[in-house]
């Protein structure tokens, strides 16, 4: 008996080890892909940095939609809050230290997450979806009207970040911004892989599948979801701040319904409920957007729509989810 228990411990430890190994592989993969991107597109680092910033938004959405099962079409509110907060910190308060700006974005995102969560979690189903859409429009209108603070429809310009760590200028080619973005992404990704495997992450997955069961286990559903919303906001806020720092301007599009919907498309394209899915979806979608809108900007929306329909019909688990399922099946057959 004692032997058996020991053996099982060994097994469980092996599971942990594979999980840790997979996380390490994930981090290495991010570094490798980022490096390849740097070498292949040295003149397009701005786009690559934008992809990283949006990846934060998609990861953040994944936390809420993929891990908690909340359908929202207003998630850009959290990203935009981070972007505007970091931008306004620089323009109006002279806070130009990049890491501080990111922290400001993180906090603003978390606050926006708290507000969004408190509102969106009031209802379920269609009313919940409507709340999320109304919320993003409300944020958008607010930013539009408070133009003395936000620059309104002209955008908030004049963001002038100091050199990173006092050493690296944010150069014209966007090298510093890109490296800064990659490092931030690695940190956040490493933290999130641990969070989704933590007891809290497990509770969230349970809530997604059956909130009534969780209540019968004595778990608190609403407050858990709200906490996840705050964490999600912090992640999106970092992305917003990164975008503000790298482009040195914040536009109303960062608080738009379209960005919210697009981030959902990216997440579903990659696969919900997995951080890798979120990243893959972002890269593929943004790259696709860059190609199509360069070739024919007129048809961009049609293409996104068609892509979405195709994913729903043929790859409902997304690229990563479908591929993972395929390899699992193959592995089982052997």
């Amino acid at each position: 008996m004692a032997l058996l228990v020991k053996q099982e411990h060994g097994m469980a430890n092996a599971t942990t080890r594979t999980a840790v190994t997979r996380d390490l592989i994930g981090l290495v993969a991010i570094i490798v892909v980022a490096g390849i991107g740097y070498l292949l597109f040295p003149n397009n680092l701005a786009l690559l940095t934008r992809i990283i910033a949006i990846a934060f938004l998609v990861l953040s959405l994944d936390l809420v939609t993929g891990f908690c099962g909340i359908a929202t079409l207003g998630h850009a509110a959290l990203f935009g809050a981070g972007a505007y907060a970091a931008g306004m910190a620089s323009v109006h308060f002279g806070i130009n230290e990049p890491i501080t700006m990111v922290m400001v974005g993180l906090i603003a995102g978390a606050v926006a997450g708290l507000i969004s969560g408190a509102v969106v979690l009031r209802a379920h189903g269609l009313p919940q979806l409507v709340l999320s859409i109304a919320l993003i429009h409300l944020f958008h209108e607010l930013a539009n009207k408070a133009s003395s603070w936000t620059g309104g429809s002209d955008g908030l310009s004049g963001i002038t970040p100091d050199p990173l760590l006092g050493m690296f200028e944010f150069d014209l080619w966007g090298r510093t911004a890109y490296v800064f973005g990659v490092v931030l992404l690695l940190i956040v990704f490493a933290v999130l892989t641990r969070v989704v495997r933590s007891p809290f992450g497990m509770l969230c997955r349970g809530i997604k599948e059956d909130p009534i069961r969780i209540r019968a286990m004595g778990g608190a559903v609403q407050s858990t979801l709200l906490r996840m919303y705050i964490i999600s906001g912090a992640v999106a806020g970092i992305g917003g701040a990164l975008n503000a720092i790298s482009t040195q301007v914040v536009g109303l599009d960062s608080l738009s319904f379209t960005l919210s919907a697009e981030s959902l498309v990216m997440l579903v394209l990659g696969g919900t409920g997995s951080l890798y899915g979120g990243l893959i979806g972002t890269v593929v979608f943004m790259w696709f957007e860059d190609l199509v809108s360069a070739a024919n900007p007129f048809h961009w929306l049609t293409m996104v729509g068609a892509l979405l329909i195709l994913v729903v019909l043929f790859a409902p688990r997304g690229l990563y989810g479908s591929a993972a399922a395929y390899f699992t099946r193959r592995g089982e057959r052997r």
Partner: protein
Amino acid sequence: MQTVFSVAVDALAYGMVLFVISIGLSVTMGLMRVVNLAHGAFAMIGGYIASYAVRDLGLGYAAAVLIAVFGTVLIAIPIERLLYRRIYGSPELTQVLMTIGITFCIIGIANYVFGPTLKTIPLPAELQGSVDLGFRSIATHRIFAIACGLAVALGLWYLIERTGFGVKLRAAVDDAAMAAALGVRTDVVYAVSFAIGIGLAAFGGVVGAELLPVEPYYALRYMVTFLVVVSVGGAGSIPGALLACLVLGGIDTTGRYLWPEFGEFFFYAAVIAIICVFPRGLAGRAR
């Protein structure tokens, strides 16, 4: 006093247009439980067809309305067959994605075919001008819109409460499996309700073009407006939808009139407030 009156008339007209467009969404949502974000896109298609019929083909207004309604239904049928059929009973997220995909496609295609500019649907002489009520005159079109709304409400009430089809429809809304077991062909009921819903959306899109101007982003701009009518009114409830339209029409019109500089701000704030207070809708039946 006069401004109060004219705001009230505008609010009523706006609310009625919202009602005509959204009621089809409400019925199909109550029936098929599909979160259809593309509903407004069909209203937009109706508007485009009518505009094309009047301006390019030189047809009369009444003919244009008819062509728009039937044309939109014709376009919608294959979309229902090929795409909507696959998401009945799917998780909400799947439905959201599919219908938002359809919306994006329709917007993109409308943009390509008709261009990004605003399309008008010229009114016939009888609907232009205004009617003098003695103490105040009202734009004839507003009265027309209100009359259309009332006619649709009455017609639907009759259809649902007084006809054989209505009995089947109500049975399918309450319990589709049971209705099917009792011999109701639910797929036929679904298809007919979907067609009626889309037809009404197109009708509303044409009649309401003065208040909700037809342009490619129509489908996105008013998406939340139509959805909110359903979620506030309660899916499948006609009185709920009517009440929701009047309340939301009132808030939106008053907001625009009193604080035009805030745009949609009050509308969205009101939407959030109403749903937070009534998370199950005013009629309390939504799920």
